């Protein structure tokens, strides 16, 4: 294994020949370099895309701080090198290394990948290979680090089952310490894996065997050792721990050059297409004081110019008005841009933005998602046209010239009329805006394509066909051909790839392996799109891509991800799916509990952490009398 000095000497030979070498040298303010030889457990945290995207990831930052707070462990970082750098490194035999100490990744005890989205899978394989680590879990031995992954894509870990030793399901804040403790307490790889598999929230694929039916669907999942969970239920923290303040300050310009404070986790809106809203329950809020103090500490510790107050739905934060008042008061007169994304379409949102005006730049973003009453009922995001028109008109009236509207095509049972309505609504928003603010008003319509994700009420539905998607996009391009309207969309190939990867079973692992061998990487990047390589990989393994994407699922089908639980009862999801077919709306579940499964699963956690930070309403349910609740308990669906 190359020593850090040897890696540094090699880097010196190549860094001046690659684009933006600042990506590969570390040395940032707030990065932590510990004495390698004095620390027992070394962890490498990896975001498998380039530095420019990965360095600002908040999830990894939380883990980085938490691990580095331990005396007996250190955490360092690595990202995917851009192909120019990769070619140079491979050419000179330089393995992928950590930015802090320049140690080869193969010298760490534990490697943790963040997998927030599925198009990072081939990069993950590539990174292991570039680190000189066998990409398959089964090929690794005592000489290799333990490789784990977490993040939203782990909601269905099966397509990556062959490559990871373990997955963390749910939130990583508590479980990472359990994992490090287990690694310290055990000697051999085999002992470590056995102990890791018994940590609640850790899924170790090698101890689960999937049995298939003749039609390729799953018959059942068998556990191969005693004492492991089935299903593996996600971990959560009862209360959000103090948020990070010492963000890494990149020395080069990156995509999100800012500090972020998570104001709330989870969402109670219940939009049926939204995986994040389903799998991050329950809603837990931070206090206004904690948020504002954290923001100030983070700005002082970084010198950064931009603050993002993050959540899935800022308007639903209980004290959002107070938060905005305090933030604008605290940072008055300071050069700082503040963003408060994910606002609801209502006039209150404009008042909020007005208060942040001094600190605000750029446009106003709203997400109606659909444009007909029928579609809005199906997806459970019901915002009447008049509300959209009134709000956007008011935004233009108050001086914003650009509004960005997010829509999605490809929702279940969507027709061309529903898509036409998106175009009509955009045109109406613009023409109403012109009445109050003149011809300078602009509109940006971002129209993505829906992918029915695991652990959502839409997990039973098929992905729209390529032909349909193309026809719908053609209509939009034709209808919204206006120099004051900017239309952006997702290429159908990208949507299908995302769908294959997110809905796949274990057989997809071989497809991913072959696609990577065929040269796919950076799948999230337009310039690296290699659809044919993916289709070839499916063909090589005799699999039909349509099996994963264009097949309506039986109501009793066992999904590849059913032994992984986000603490949502399958029956809850199915009831919600059925209500969608009937066009029935479900209200915000702060007002009415629909028994998704969170409360019985985490009854003890809740009981031990009373108070108002956790936003589930109090419900009398059979589980409240039970000591140990499991997610498979069948509760009546309240509010049906």
């Amino acid at each position, binding site marked *: 294994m190359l020593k850090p000095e040897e890696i540094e000497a090699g880097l010196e030979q190549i860094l001046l*020949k690659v684009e933006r070498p*600042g990506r590969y040298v570390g040395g940032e*303010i707030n990065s932590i370099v510990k004495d390698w030889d004095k620390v027992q457990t070394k962890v490498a945290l990896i975001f498998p895309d380039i530095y420019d995207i990965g360095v600002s990831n908040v999830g990894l930052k939380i883990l980085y701080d938490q691990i580095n707070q331990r005396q007996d462990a250190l955490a360092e970082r690595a990202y995917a090198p851009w192909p120019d750098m990769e070619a140079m490194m491979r050419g000179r035999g330089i393995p992928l290394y950590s930015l802090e100490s320049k140690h080869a990744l193969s010298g760490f005890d534990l490697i943790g990948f963040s997998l927030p989205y599925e198009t990072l899978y081939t990069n993950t394989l590539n990174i292991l290979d570039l680190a000189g680590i066998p990409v398959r879990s089964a090929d690794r031995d005592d000489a290799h680090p333990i490789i784990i992954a977490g993040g939203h894509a782990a909601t269905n870990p099966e397509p990556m089952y062959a490559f990871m030793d373990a997955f963390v399901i749910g939130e990583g804040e508590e479980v990472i310490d359990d994992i490090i403790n287990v690694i310290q307490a055990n000697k051999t790889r085999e002992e470590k894996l056995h102990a890791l598999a018994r940590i609640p929230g850790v899924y170790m694929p090698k101890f689960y065997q999937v049995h298939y039916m003749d039609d390729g669907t799953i018959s059942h999942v068998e556990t191969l050792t005693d004492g492991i969970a089935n299903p593996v239920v996600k971990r959560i923290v009862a209360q959000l721990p103090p948020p990070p303040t010492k963000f890494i300050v990149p*020395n080069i*310009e990156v995509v999100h050059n800012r500090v972020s404070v998570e104001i709330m986790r989870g969402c109670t809106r219940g939009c049926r297409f939204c995986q994040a809203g389903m799998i991050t329950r329950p809603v837990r809020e931070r206090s206004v004081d904690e948020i504002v103090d954290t923001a100030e500490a983070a700005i*002082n510790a970084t*010198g950064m110019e931009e603050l993002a107050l993050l959540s899935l739905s800022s308007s639903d934060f209980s004290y959002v008005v107070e938060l905005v008042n305090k933030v604008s008061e605290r940072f008055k007169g300071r050069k700082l841009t503040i963003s408060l994304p994910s606002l609801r379409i209502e006039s209150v949102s404009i008042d909020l933005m007005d208060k942040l005006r001094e600190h605000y730049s750029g446009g106003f973003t709203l997400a109606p998602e659909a444009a007909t009453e029928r579609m809005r009922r199906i997806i459970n995001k019901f915002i009447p046209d008049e509300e959209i028109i009134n709000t956007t008109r008011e935004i233009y009236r108050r001086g914003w010239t650009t509004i960005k509207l997010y829509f999605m095509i490809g929702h279940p049972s969507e027709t061309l009329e529903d898509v036409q309505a998106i175009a009509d609504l955009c045109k109406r928003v613009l023409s109403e805006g012109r009445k109050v603010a003149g011809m300078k008003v602009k509109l940006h319509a971002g129209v993505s394509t829906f992918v029915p994700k695991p652990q959502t009420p839409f997990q039973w539905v098929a992905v729209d066909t390529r032909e349909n998607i193309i026809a719908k996009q053609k209509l939009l391009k034709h209808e919204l051909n206006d120099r004051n309207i900017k239309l952006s969309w997702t290429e159908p190939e990208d949507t299908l790839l995302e769908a294959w990867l997110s809905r796949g079973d274990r057989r997809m692992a071989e497809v991913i392996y072959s696609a990577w061998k065929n040269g796919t990487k950076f799948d999230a990047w337009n310039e690296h799109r290699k659809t044919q390589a993916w289709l070839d990989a499916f063909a090589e393994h005799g699999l039909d891509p349509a099996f994963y994407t264009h097949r309506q699922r039986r109501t009793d089908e066992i999904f590849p991800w059913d032994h992984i639980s986000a603490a949502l009862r399958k029956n809850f999801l199915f009831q919600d799916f059925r209500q969608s077919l009937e066009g029935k709306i479900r209200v915000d579940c702060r007002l009415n509990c629909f028994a998704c499964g969170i409360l019985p699963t985490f009854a003890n956690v809740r009981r031990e952490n009373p108070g108002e930070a956790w936003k589930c309403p109090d419900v009398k349910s059979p589980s409240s009398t039970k000591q140990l609740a499991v997610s498979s308990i069948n509760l009546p669906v309240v509010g049906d």
Partner: protein
Amino acid sequence: MRVRITFSKTGALRYIGHLDLNTIWERAARRAGLPLAYTQGFHPQPKMNFASALPLGFSSRCEVMDMRFNEDMDLISLSAQLQDAMPSGIGILNVENIDERAAPLQTQIISAEYEATLTETSDVSELKRKIDDVIASQSLPRERRGKFYDLRPLIERLELNSENKILMRLAAREGATGRPEEVLDVLGIMIEHARVERTNLIFRN
């Protein structure tokens, strides 16, 4: 208050370009809580001026910049506060007060001196011959990013010292700046086989 700062740039920061260096200084001032002055307008910019952009990949022990602050401060504590807030690789060497009306740095610089340490052994006599050829030449037509220019008049001094380091003094006037990697290229030395450090900036007067 306008201050003139002399600083070094080494280590990982060699790989950070000039525009990013601006941000590093601005953020250091903000982290240090110093009242950095900004321009007026819709996109306020910090009032900072560098004598001469240092090409990416080179270290330096002589960078010079001016920074303006909204309040007067003690120079010693200013220097210490800024240094504490800096990523490793920037070393503040000197801070002095400067007349607000003094001419901007970039109009005062004339030339810059560089020292290239060769990391691959080469034939010294051959190298000496090439250096003599360059000095003897009337012109050195070059093409850089599609533009043709003559490198020769930009080379004010070029020599091999006793430690086999190449010393050069190149013009650094606005619109007439010699680049050390161009000189190395003429000498047949690949950029990855030399470590280049800027050692001195020469100003008018």
